[in-house]
């Protein structure tokens, strides 16, 4: 084939000499991937003349006689300009983009070359997050950037994630970073609805100087998501189809639950020795026939309530462009059947991003995303309606359905309905009945789009004006139906009006109107400057209606028009607005010396007129040492990159402050079914932003053509004016009012290192290892009424944690366990003074210095191997020195308190005789709260391992690439914790908003999974 094209090229060359032009031909290779199919080839300086390479990588192009060079480009690879002076035949190999330094990074309202960045920004490329079998973007960031802690809230399909950038910065306000998708500030519900396959890149603005441009919303860092836009370089459409199918299952518990005999024996011994439990049941156990019948029931509630989850995802996209137009379009479908029966999540998405150069001064562009998610939810709160608790609590001798006694084999069927009759267990409830008969469904629709016009104005080179309108519409519908005749209806319903249905609909609309003026100018050849000035107005408006009905004739008639009685109706309106102006100057001298300055002023409707506007300033300096001539050629050869960054910036936090918090208000209420007015809260006109000031120092390095590369960052962050919802309470008027009350600091170090141990182009073999590590240290610096005396530090109690001056925020505050007295079997505690006692008292709780849910150290490491078409990647995540209050263990090792429920097998290791050394005390029937179940949570987890193979496809004309892969997630874990270590929320509907990982209380279990997929390019 090559010979043929060579000959063809020669023929063409001969033919074309007659014209005032000539023909150039050749082959384009992609480093490590073989021939480039569809690579762009244009005349350098005249991009109107060009072509794309054939399926075998060859091209032939007629070029004007004066053409000096050709420019080659291909997605994911660096552009290359090759001289054609004196030659008509070229052999070009394009290097992957990641190996070059001049990639352009989105940093907030603009994008600059990475070597000119002097602030702390991490970039996650699309490539790094592709094919991960989770539904949302938040999860994809796990382990992708040092200093960015990502914890799944739980294992729910489509579930949320917690993201913490450089520690916890607020006591009572949000600690989530600001998410910006294509210029639009969005909430987690919106970014989680986006199709991850649409993402081009994610920039994480970690330090304050980088984030200042987002001012008042940025103190927790900023995550900038940029979606694919197509490319003018790709005349030929890049069509990609991706398909995935996989399985998930619950991660294994490091403990066992009692089986039928163990539980019966345990109950018997507990009753006989300590009088704990149910006399009748224990008497029955002595009857061999009864015992026998229970043994026949023997079931595993985890088997009854859980299943192997499955998920599938399909994605079809097309991107490309002409010299005047770029486009990217995609359609995606993701569907997951959760590991807990009934739970499911599916998502349909579509996107069209396009831009069109309408004239020499005007470019019009849009992004448009539409999506729909549909999920079947399970109750996730710590009560009998929670299947994740029931699967531990229900006894192995309790059957799912009522069985014919005494044989205990046949299921009893309801003579009316023909349905099996559920066994209402010791809790008076059947969770397997509830998940069937109390369905809860949530549907969301999302539209996220923008229209923008870029204008080159006044014929001044580099002067551009952009006006942009973004809109985000999100609707949410929740339907919850307690079917008539269901068990729950028996508890909460009205027998005269059976069944309760609730329908909630909310609609959120946010628009952003933004104007940006940018001016890029190089003065005196070497002084490069970018100026940016902008204004932004964000308006948010949310409406909710909710209504309940009761009295349903039938379980199939679930809409509320079937209800005999409509009640609990309400509708609400909430609005929020912010108005901002900002300016940024970036300067560099020969790319060697860098400086930037940013200023933003933000106005927010939640603050009173006195403090409505907040001002935020930052500056940064950078030095690209590797561009310095004094290094000498020898050193320059070895040092591919060496940059020092120094920055300081201010940011703010206003999340959690509502538009009307500034006002003292009286709210409408009801009294005996008639309207009334109630005092709601006092005015806080002086409420103002939480402010963070953070200096940070960083070094980026790369040696030996970036075979070894990495970065070191150090930061300090002081947050002042912390919000607290209660500290300004009038003690004799306890309505909660938000006020600014304290200060805290975070400081830390982040390291990142990547090394190509083997990089052999000839063998097409690379072996890369990478790792990251960071340490973060938090301390509360001040709280109200601090008298400065270290003996009496000011404290806020949150149960089971405190905020206290001098300690980390959310330090656990508990009675200290002192084990078990071997002589008596008594559970022992330390009193407040450190003396051992066998009398528990809540007064003996103390601050457990250094013990919080926030890990002190965390990071990741992994490896990647590429040999010819085969890739193998593995990444591990680790965290050290965090603590979890394990209420689940406390309930399952309850010293007799929860004897009616199943217990862990090790509950049986209780103290029996003097001299026994055990950590399970002599059962008293009461379980006391102490740090006995506060567990250290160090863990290491094989987050994912992926093997992929790119098929050699030279002969297949219509295909450009086919890649097949298999990927496993959470395959392997080691932990000091007594459960799955990735603890997010304790329980979805649990009161309060503790730190992620603060306690475990039966939420949707974490999963491990296996996925198979194929990515095809046309």
């Amino acid at each position: 084939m090559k010979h043929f094209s060579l000959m063809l090229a020669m023929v063409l060359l001969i033919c074309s000499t007659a014209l005032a032009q000539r023909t150039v031909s050749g082959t384009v290779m992609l480093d490590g991937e073989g021939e480039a199919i569809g690579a762009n080839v244009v005349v350098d300086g005249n991009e109107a003349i060009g072509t794309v390479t054939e399926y075998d990588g060859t091209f032939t192009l007629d070029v004007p006689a004066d053409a000096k060079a050709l420019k080659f480009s291909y997605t994911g690879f660096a552009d290359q300009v090759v001289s054609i002076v004196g030659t008509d035949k070229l052999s070009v190999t394009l290097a992957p983009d990641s190996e070059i330094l001049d990639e352009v990074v989105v940093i907030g309202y603009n994008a600059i070359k990475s070597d000119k960045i002097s602030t702390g920004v991490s970039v996650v490329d699309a490539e790094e997050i592709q094919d991960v079998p989770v539904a949302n973007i938040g999860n994809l960031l796990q382990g992708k950037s040092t200093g960015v802690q990502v914890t799944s809230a739980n294992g729910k399909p489509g579930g949320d994630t917690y993201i913490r950038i450089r520690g916890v910065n607020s006591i009572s306000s949000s600690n989530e970073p600001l998410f910006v998708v294509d210029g639009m500030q969005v909430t987690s519900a919106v970014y989680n609805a986006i199709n991850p396959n649409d993402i081009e890149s994610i920039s994480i603005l970690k330090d304050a100087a980088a984030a200042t441009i987002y001012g008042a919303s940025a103190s927790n860092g900023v995550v900038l998501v940029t979606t694919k836009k197509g490319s003018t370089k790709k005349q030929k459409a890049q069509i990609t189809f991706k398909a995935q199918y996989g399985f998930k299952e619950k991660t294994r518990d490091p403990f066992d639950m009692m089986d039928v005999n163990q539980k019966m024996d345990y109950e018997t011994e507990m009753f006989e020795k300590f009088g704990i439990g149910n006399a009748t049941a224990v008497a029955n156990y002595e009857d061999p026939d009864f015992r026998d019948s229970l043994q026949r029931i023997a079931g595993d509630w985890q088997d009854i309530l859980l299943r192997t989850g499955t998920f599938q995802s399909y994605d079809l996209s097309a991107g490309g462009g002409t010299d005047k137009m770029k486009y990217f379009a995609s359609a995606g479908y993701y569907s997951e059947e959760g590991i807990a029966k009934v739970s499911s999540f599916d998502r349909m998405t579509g996107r069209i991003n396009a831009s069109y150069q309408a004239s020499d001064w005007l470019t019009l562009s849009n992004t448009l995303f539409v999506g729909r998610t549909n999920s079947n939810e399970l109750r996730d709160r710590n009560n009998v309606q929670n299947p994740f608790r029931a699967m531990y609590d229900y006894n192995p001798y309790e059957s799912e359905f009522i069985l014919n006694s005494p044989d205990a084999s046949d299921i009893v069927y309801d003579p009316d309905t023909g349905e099996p009759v559920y066994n209402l267990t010791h809790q008076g409830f059947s969770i397997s009945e509830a998940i069937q008969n109390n369905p809860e469904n949530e549907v969301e629709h999302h539209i996220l789009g923008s229209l923008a016009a870029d204008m080159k104005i006044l014929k001044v080179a580099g002067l551009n004006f952009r006006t942009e309108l973004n809109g985000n519409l999100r609707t949410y519908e929740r339907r919850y139906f307690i079917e008539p005749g269901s068990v729950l209806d028996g508890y909460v319903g009205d027998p005269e009006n059976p069944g309760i249905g609730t329908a909630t609909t909310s609609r959120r609309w946010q628009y952003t109107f933004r104007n940006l003026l940018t001016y890029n100018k190089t003065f005196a050849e070497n002084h490069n400057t970018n100026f940016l000035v902008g204004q932004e107005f964000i308006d948010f408006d949310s409406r909710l209606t909710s209504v309940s009905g009761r009295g349903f004739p039938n379980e199939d008639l679930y809409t509320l028009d079937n209800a005999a009685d409509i009640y609990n109706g309400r509708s609400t309106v909430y609005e929020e607005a912010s108005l901002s102006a900002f300016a940024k100057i970036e300067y560099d001298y020969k790319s060697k010396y860098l400086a930037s300055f940013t200023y933003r002023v933000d106005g927010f409707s939640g603050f009173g007129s006195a403090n409505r506007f907040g001002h935020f300033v930052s500056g940064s300096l950078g030095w690209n040492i590797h561009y310095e001539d004094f290094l000498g050629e020898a050193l320059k050869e070895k040092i591919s990159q060496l940059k020092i960054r120094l920055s300081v910036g201010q940011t703010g936090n206003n999340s959690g402050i509502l538009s009307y918090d500034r006002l003292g208000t009286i709210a409408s209420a009801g009294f005996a079914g008639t309207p009334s007015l109630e005092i709601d809260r006092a005015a806080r006109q002086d409420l103002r932003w939480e402010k963070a000031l953070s200096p940070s120092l960083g070094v980026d390095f790369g040696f030996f053509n970036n075979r070894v590369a990495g970065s070191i960052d150090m930061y300090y962050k002081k947050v002042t004016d912390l919000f607290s919802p209660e500290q300004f309470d009038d003690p004799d008027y306890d309505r909660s009012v938000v006020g600014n009350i304290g200060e805290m600091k975070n400081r830390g170090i982040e390291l990142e290192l990547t090394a190509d141990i083997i990089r052999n182009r000839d063998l097409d073999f690379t072996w890369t290892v990478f790792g990251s590590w960071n340490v973060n240290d938090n301390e509360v610096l001040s709280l109200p009424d601090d008298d400065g005396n270290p003996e009496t530090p000011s404290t806020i109690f949150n149960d089971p944690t405190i905020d206290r001056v001098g300690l980390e925020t959310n330090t656990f505050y508990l009675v200290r366990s002192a084990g078990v007295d071997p002589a008596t079997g008594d559970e022992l505690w330390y009193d407040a003074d450190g003396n051992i006692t066998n009398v528990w008292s809540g007064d003996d709780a103390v601050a457990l210095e250094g013990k919080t849910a926030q890990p002190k150290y965390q990071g990741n490491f992994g490896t990647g191997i590429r040999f010819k078409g085969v890739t193998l990647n593995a990444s591990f995540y680790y965290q050290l020195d965090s603590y979890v209050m394990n209420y689940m263990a406390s309930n399952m090792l309850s010293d007799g308190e929860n004897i009616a429920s199943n217990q862990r097998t090790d509950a049986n290791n209780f103290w029996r005789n003097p001299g026994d050394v055990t950590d399970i005390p002599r059962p008293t029937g009461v379980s006391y709260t102490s740090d006995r179940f506060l567990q250290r949570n160090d863990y290491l987890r094989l987050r994912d391992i992926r093997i992929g193979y790119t098929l050699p496809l030279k002969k297949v004309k219509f295909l450009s690439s086919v890649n097949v892969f298999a990927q496993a997630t959470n395959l392997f874990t080691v932990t000091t914790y007594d459960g799955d270590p990735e603890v997010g929320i304790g329980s979805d509907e649990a009161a309060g908003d503790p730190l992620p990982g603060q306690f475990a209380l039966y939420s949707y279990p974490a999963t491990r999974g296996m996925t198979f997929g194929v990515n095809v390019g046309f």
Partner: protein
Amino acid sequence: MKKFKYIACVLFALMISMTSCKDKLDLLPTNELETSIVLVSPSNFELFTKGIYGHLRDNYTSLYTILPDVMSDNLIIKQNGRKSLQTYYLLLTNSENTYGEIRTFSHRVIFSANTALENIDVLEDGEYKTNLTGELLALRALSHFDIAKTFAKTPSIGADSDLGIVYRTSTSVGDNDSRITLGETYTNIVADLEQAKSFLNDDNGLGRINKFTVYGLLSRVYLYMGNAEKARENAQYVVDNSPYEVTPMASVNDLWDNVYFGSTLLSSLVDVQDDIEMGVNYGQTGPTGTKSEYVPDFGFYNLYSDSDIRKTAYFETSSFEGNDYNHIIKYKQRPGAPANVADAPILRMEEVMLNLAEAQAQLGNDADALASLNMIRTRRYSDFNFVNQMGQDLKDAIQLERRLELAFEGHRFYDLKRQGLGFTRTNAGDLSDGSGTPPPASALSLSAGNFRYEFPYAQRSLNINPNLVQNPGY
């Protein structure tokens, strides 16, 4: 060049439009009104006063009604319940585990009443204004009394110079945030009530305070103060002048079904829309029976004789998880309403009658006291036989009847406290036959005068208000 002028115009227009956005930051809520604009309109006073009763309802449908039984010898925790309020049951209250809730709603009532009183002159002088002023003063006094009986000693056993509470007569924060003496506290409570008495109408409708309510409350307050003569005087006034009666035996069930109101001097009306299910504090009933949180102390339960209508009106013995329990059904369900929705009693004629009997007995007037007591007993026991009781016997009989009649209505703990008594729970379990898990030894009794009779202020409140002094013992 024209094009650029055009563009310049567009840019200018955009800039202007952004500036006008500034006004859009002044957003106002749709379900709240700014405080400053509410109490300038007379019509809002009525709505606002109803809102204060809403706060009162929030109080009496929660802790004030159940805690005095949980923290005494009337209730014991059911082992397989949800263990709600366990800290209180185990007598382990401290400044960090007893949050401010018990005071919260009282303070809302007080703050709101003061807000309204400060703006009362918006109303035209006349009967409406006078009566409303009386209601506001009574609401303020009742809520202060609720705090005082919980956080301070009662004057009947304490000295006037003992710690009282913060008594607020204005909304300004920080003016009066120290605890005044016990004597001053009760002087203020009585002053507000006595003033209210003279302002109020005879009838303000169900759920609203009227003149007789205040007389009835004063009979209670004076008993807490150890002033039998005044207690008798106020109770006697209600008995002699008011239309209220002791609930006849035939209506006892109707009373708890919220369809009979003949004895109700004041109750917190709970509407279905309020989403308040006070019965849940005691237990929830489902297809497998009632899952109780608390069940009666076994010894206490046995004080109800089979001929006592209250035994079936207050209790139901049924099986749950294979065991029989005595469940409390006083607030289980109003017919036609969702489960556990019921009104919360605050003051009923039976208490006034018992206050009268107690005061009469204290004053040595045994004959009258016995007659008052029998007003209750004849309406409760199907086999009531007149017995002539005197002296201490009579006093004991009055207290017994009070405990039986007013069980689960927020009295027991305070009745023990004001008489300087301790209590001992029955060393029996939570099952209907007294088997099961008894209270732990540490929570079996509370000695007379124990410091836990005065609740601890929440640490949070102490942190915020350095003038607030914690009660001894915590």
